[in-house]
């Protein structure tokens, strides 16, 4: 029997409540067995699958990084031959950026946003399910081909003439281009789902200025995904069509231009790294609020700086191309934009420090990771400002200095907060607390290992070691620093291993987590751990920006949602005034079939153009099933009593309350 600690401390459950909760569990239950695994549209189940799959790809990426570090440990090493090394570093970059970072950030959003805004499920559950399967197929495609010696070998951003038809024989880069399209479709699905949930499904009373910062971060990230991903889908489609049907987008002899690819890719590239970084800001705000036992300092400043980072993120992609023959004046404009984006991040860090100043800090592993973040990200941000200036960038661009910078801001900026988020939310997901002792070991091994690997790389970059070299000459003076970096990589890997041990240990021996182990303030902590399928039995009414802390004594709730159908509350965008009782579709097989149809279109599309025709027919067939096939439409229309037509008439009871 799932232990049900509901959010109604005021009164125990009556007889009617018990029956209704049993009914709810039956309606929202996931179908059993393998079929259930493919058809379940519960946002928590899908999100956990995303997290686990993305973490497995993170481990693959880590193994590839270890291979590279072994090869670079000594000059003129013969551990990997150049062809294999080029595949390893390309698949490492592609895995970390496309198969780990973006999906895991949207995954945490898909899991926690509905709980934090007080909804029973996400806005478009089947689209969410479809997004996961497309991502899974993209990942399998990359790794099956990598094992079969067809891994992409032109770098994770595959600059054109090298990745073009002339200089990349075979199907390696085609598979990379199609894999990009897959992961971008899944990211776009995730973004549409998150925006739909945040705008339309918030609990009554949660107006926009009471939204938790985590939800703000996810909202801003989703809008960035909406406007950034099409750029890379176009870049990879142009590349694929250049390679397969002889178009001339990047062929300088026929009017094309190699720099067009760089513009197109980096217009997506830089927002992409902010798409990875901004959700981490949301994690940190949640962790800092809980472990400083205090409301965040400067809530509006934090929200404005999130939005400012998003807008500026689109305006500075040319700092990746300072070494190309672009006009000097244009480049200095982008220097200014690149430096300006350091201001919102600076404001965020100042506000967190102000929040923690003089607070009763509860030093637990999540907060330790946040402190690790501050130490590493500030250094990464400063090297980023150095990279923003054109003359200095000419010296350190495409060297190991850049490798150090990107790992400082990516691992420091989002992997450390991610591990903090794991320690903070795994009790909610699994019902078991992770061990604090192992947590501290995990943090310190990762912190020290990370600094040992990547700090010497600043020095290597300044001493002239270019990026992506499979080996280097002995007399360059780079041998000792590379050896040090390789040892550091071992310690970093050890740290991640400790996390896995901690997770597996906690599954059996971890303390049972109650509903709110950290006394946190957001709504997901009012539910049991792990939360029931239907999330909220009665959706709470929110009275302050820190939902649980600002809850008044009599704790108003929403009643009247039917328990015979999967119903959730749809509310207005700005003030969350209830508008509709929205009927969510139940489990359905169609998302999986649509994902397979999309997979057929793009994978076979590498080999023949007819794949698009077959794909179109298959997709249309699946749409017919998707549109007509789901059972719950039938009975609704039949026995539904005629509804009152004006949705905008909000019930009077609410209006009186928060007048």
């Amino acid at each position, binding site marked *: 029997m799932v232990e049900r600690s509901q959010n109604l401390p005021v009164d125990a459950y009556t007889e009617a409540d018990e029956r209704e909760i049993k009914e709810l569990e039956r309606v929202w239950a996931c179908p059993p067995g393998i079929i259930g695994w493919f058809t379940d549209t519960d946002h928590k189940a899908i999100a956990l699958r995303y997290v686990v799959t993305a973490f497995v790809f993170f481990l693959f990426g880590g193994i590839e990084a270890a291979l590279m570090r072994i090869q670079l440990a000594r000059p003129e090493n013969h551990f990997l031959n*150049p*062809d294999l090394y*080029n595949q390893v570093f390309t698949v490492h970059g592609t895995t970390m950026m496309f198969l780990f970072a973006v999906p895991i950030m949207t995954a945490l959003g898909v899991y926690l946003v509905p709980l934090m805004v007080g909804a029973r499920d996400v806005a478009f559950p089947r689209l969410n399910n479809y997004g996961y399967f497309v991502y899974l197929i993209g990942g399998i495609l990359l790794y099956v081909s990598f094992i079969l010696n067809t891994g992409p070998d032109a*770098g994770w951003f595959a*600059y054109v*003439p*090298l990745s073009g038809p002339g*200089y990349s024989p075979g199907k390696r880069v085609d598979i990379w281009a199609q894999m990009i399209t897959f992961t971008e479709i899944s990211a776009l699905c995730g973004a549409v789902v998150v925006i739909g949930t945040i705008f339309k499904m918030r609990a009554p009373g949660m107006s926009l200025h009471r939204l938790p910062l985590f939800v703000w971060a996810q909202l801003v990230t989703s809008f960035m995904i909406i406007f950034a991903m099409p750029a890379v889908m176009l870049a990879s489609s142009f590349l694929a069509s250049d390679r397969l049907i002889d178009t001339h987008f990047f062929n300088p002899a026929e009017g094309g231009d*190699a720099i067009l690819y760089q513009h197109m890719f980096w217009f997506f590239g830089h927002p992409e790294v902010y798409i990875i970084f901004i959700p981490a800001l949301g994690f940190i705000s949640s962790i800092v609020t809980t*472990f400083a*036992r205090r*409301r965040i*300092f*400067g809530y509006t400043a934090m929200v404005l700086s999130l939005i400012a980072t998003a807008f500026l993120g689109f305006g500075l992609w040319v700092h990746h191309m300072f*070494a190309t*023959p672009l006009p*000097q004046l244009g480049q*200095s404009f982008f*220097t200014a934009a690149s*430096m*300006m984006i*350091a*201001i919102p991040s600076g*404001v965020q860090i*100042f506000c967190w*420090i*102000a929040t*923690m100043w*003089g*607070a*009763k*800090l509860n*030093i637990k592993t999540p907060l330790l990771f946040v*402190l690790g973040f*501050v130490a590493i990200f500030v250094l990464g941000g400063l090297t980023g*400002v*150095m990279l*923003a*200036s*054109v*003359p200095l*960038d*000419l*010296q350190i*661009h*495409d*060297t190991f200095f850049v490798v150090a910078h990107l790992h400082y801001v990516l691992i420091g900026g989002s992997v450390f907060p991610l591990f903090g988020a794991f320690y903070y939310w795994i009790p909610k997901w699994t019902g078991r607390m992770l061990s604090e002792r192992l947590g*501290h070991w995990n943090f*310190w091994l990762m912190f*020290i290992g990370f*600094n040992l690997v990547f*700090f*010497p790389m600043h*020095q290597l970059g*300044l*001493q*002239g070691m*270019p990026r*992506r070299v499979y080996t280097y*000459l002995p007399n360059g003076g780079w041998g000792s620093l590379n050896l040090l970096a390789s040892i550091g990589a071992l310690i970093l890997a050890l740290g991640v291993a400790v996390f896995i041990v901690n997770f597996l240990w906690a599954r059996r021996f971890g303390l049972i987590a109650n509903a709110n182990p950290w006394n946190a303030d957001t709504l997901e902590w009012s539910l049991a751990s792990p939360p029931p399928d239907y999330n909220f039995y009665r959706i709470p009414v929110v009275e302050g920006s820190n939902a649980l802390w600002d809850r008044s004594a009599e704790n108003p709730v929403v009643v009247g949602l039917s328990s015979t159908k999967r119903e959730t509350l749809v509310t207005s965008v700005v003030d969350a005034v209830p508008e509709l009782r929205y009927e969510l579709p139940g489990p359905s097989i169609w998302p999986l079939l649509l994902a397979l149809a999309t997979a057929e279109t793009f994978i076979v599309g590498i080999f023949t153009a007819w794949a698009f025709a077959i794909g179109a027919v298959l997709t249309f067939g699946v749409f017919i099933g998707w549109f007509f096939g789901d059972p719950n439409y039938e009975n609704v229309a039949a026995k539904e009593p005629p509804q009152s037509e004006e949705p905008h008439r909000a019930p009077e009871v609410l209006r009186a309350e928060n007048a």
Partner: protein
Amino acid sequence: MTNSKRHILNGYGNGQRLLAVLLLITVSLTTSCGGGLQSALNPAGPQSQHISQLWWFMLIVCTVVFVVVLGVTLVLLVKKAQGSPDELPERESAESQRRKAFIVVAATAATIVILGAFLVDSFLVGRGLTAALDRKQGVVIEVTGHQWWWEVRYPDVDASSIFTTANEIHIPVGVPVTFTLKASDVIHSFWVPNLHGKKDLIPGKVSTIWLQADKPGIYRGQCAEYCGHQHAHMALWIFAEPREQFDEWRRNQIQSAVKPASDSEKRGQQVFLTSTCVTCHTINGTSAGANIGPNLTHVASRNTIAAATLPNDRDHLASWVDDSQQIKPGNRMPPNKFRPEEMQALLDYLQSLK
């Protein structure tokens, strides 16, 4: 960079403290700025001099900012108020909120000021780099990037004194040198850290960069844009030498190849002209005229071979000619199997091409 959290550690076994100390040692060890003939921290020309001044200015300011921010984080950890974690959060007094707001605004203003300083300084240095000096007495060199070696061509008004060499560039000291950069296949990046930043060679576009060496010496550069299998071994040397030494080198380069003297060298030339070498290489003054591979007219006058990967002595030359795929797997030169006496004759001939 003080990033160990002293007081957190004393709560734990000395295992962690040892790790932190180890970290501190290694960090201080690594910041020793090594000299090295391919280092941005060892400028030998006006451009890299300006850039390294900009670098040191930014490094110092950023280190100060980093230490301040990290110091504040550590202090707030030490000074944290005691209290059990499960009681409800208290609301801060309005007065402390106002004081903190002032500090945050001040900190943000400081950030903006620092960034402004960086922006202005980098803009000035940037303008300085591309200022058009009077390059009348300067030298113009055309560099074309191939997959994994550099073709260097010295154009001249009178056609007879135009010559092509590979991977090693001689420039006069103290004279501005303009490089015209073209790529023949994929994107490469021309970068000699001691003299100037890098400039990409993009197929279909011509980019120019000018630099100047103030101190005579040898400066090593390397391709900085990933360009395929042997991107790691695509290096070049720049020899900065006094004007007269440069002119003397140039006069020698203009001459066509030295006639073979001893009969072993004659035999070597015979072997060269009748085997696969002639399909790719050029030796001015002989019938070999293909320009797929580097120009070998004065190959013996170069210190290195194979894009500055191997020293130019007899046994490296032999191993390179016999099977270059062992040294640079994937490069465009196929292995050539010669009989031993043919190989010796060929080596004699190649080493005679001063």
